[in-house]
């Protein structure tokens, strides 16, 4: 049963991810990206981490994509539509894609991921996550917070300069 669901989610995720890069209209791409992120969230639910799934929907689908759309909608869509895909000038894309594919394949096939054992069928609760985050991973957590703060300050400074 679970496998069937996984296959559905995975197929739709891959399909919509392809649609993101192939669709000509940026607004349609954004819609496909929303669908893709929702499918990934469903896969997280199957992996017994509902919190991660919900946060994925909250942050990526709920906030980041709204901002994306905000930008895309004020762009000139007609111009973006004219561009051909794949673009001929961007030859380096053809070089990079095979390299990344080989890399990913070696990682996935070579080392493998730890399998979900019988003990890991319990869903990760928020309590467990919170404790891990604030004891074991406190340092990375704080570093990420400082990074985010720096990004925020940077964004504000960039806007300020234009005002003067």
């Amino acid at each position, binding site marked *: 049963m679970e496998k069937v669901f996984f296959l559905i989610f995975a197929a739709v995720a891959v399909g919509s991810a392809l649609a993101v890069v192939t669709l000509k*209209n940026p*607004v*349609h791409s954004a*819609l496909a990206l*929303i669908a893709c992120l929702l499918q990934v969230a469903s896969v997280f639910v199957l992996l017994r981490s*509902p*919190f991660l799934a*919900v*946060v994925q*929907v*909250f942050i990526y*689908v*709920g*906030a980041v*994509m*709204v*901002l994306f*759309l*905000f930008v895309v*909608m*004020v762009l000139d869509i007609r111009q973006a539509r004219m561009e051909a895909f794949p673009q001929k000038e961007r030859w380096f894309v053809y070089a990079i894609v095979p390299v990344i594919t080989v890399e990913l394949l070696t990682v996935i096939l070579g080392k493998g991921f730890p399998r979900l054992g019988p003990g890991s069928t319990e*869903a990760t*609760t*928020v309590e467990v996550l919170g404790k891990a985050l604030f004891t074991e991973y406190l340092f990375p957590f704080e570093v990420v917070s400082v990074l985010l703060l720096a990004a925020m300050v940077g964004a504000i400074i960039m806007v300020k300069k234009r005002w003067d």
Partner: protein
Amino acid sequence: MFETTVEVIIICIKVGVAGMVLFSLPIPLTWVERKVAGHIQVRLGPFRVGPHGILQPVADMVKMLLKEDVIPTKADKWLFMLAPIMTMVPAFAVFVAIPVGDKFTLPFIGKDITLYMSDMNVAVVYILAVSGLSIYGIIFGGWASNSKYAVMGGLRSAAQMISYEVAMSFAAVGVVMLSNSLSLVEIVKSQSGGLFHWNFLYLPVGPVWFMIFFIAGLAEVNRIPFDLPEDEGSLAAGYHVEYSGMRFAFFMLAEYIAMVTISVLAVIFFLGGWDDPTGVIPLPPILWFVGKVAAFIYLFMWIRFTLPRYRYDQLMTIGWKILIPVSLVCVLVTGLMRI
């Protein structure tokens, strides 16, 4: 195997009942809203169809169904047709996590039936996340109409939603800090035992959280005084200006359900859910719950016909310069109080 089948059937029945109730809710609500509007403005409101105009929503529905479904020539056809559904689906999906009572025992069989579909341990985050998704229907609907008023309405609602989602989430954080749980059933249980256990009366931060939640909620569901996305004065009708017939009705349906959701959440978060405030009145808990939600919905309507609309910059000022700083201070105070 038999147990699982029974569980699945029970869940299907619950989903069916909830879906039907939600679908039919706008029928009485539109009537009540127009009646409230009428009486506040010292007139009668709908009065022709049925006694006191009670069949007016039915007549409206027939009208909506028979109306021509107009799709503008230069519209993005598929997106235009998809958008109303995209607002409606999340509005319904939220109710998967919302409890309307604890549980009751079926007579004769002695089987306990819970009055919620699932008691998720991340329910608060789930509801905030999923209810935020209905904004996409508004944005895409506005964009796909290929009309500048509709696009402006869509952009406004995107900006408004991002701004007030922050304050709303902070209010939810406050509730979680007060109740020590992310599950809605647990949040209600932590407030049981009468009026003075409710989060609303957790002095001094309770009322402040409640006000933040309520104001942000008003803005999230695009109700007056924050209905800038459909400001008829400057935007015609905003994002749904090109919509007609059933598609327009779907937008309205989603808006009404969002209003009900905010009312339900306010009751669960701050007013003790199905808890009896006095502890002596022998009413079934579900009636308390419905009564509190109904009072909230009335409050929404009352505000709609009392307050004028804010200007767009005022809306942003309230969100970013008042609600968010206040909620940051409030998080600190609540944290100190809960140590």
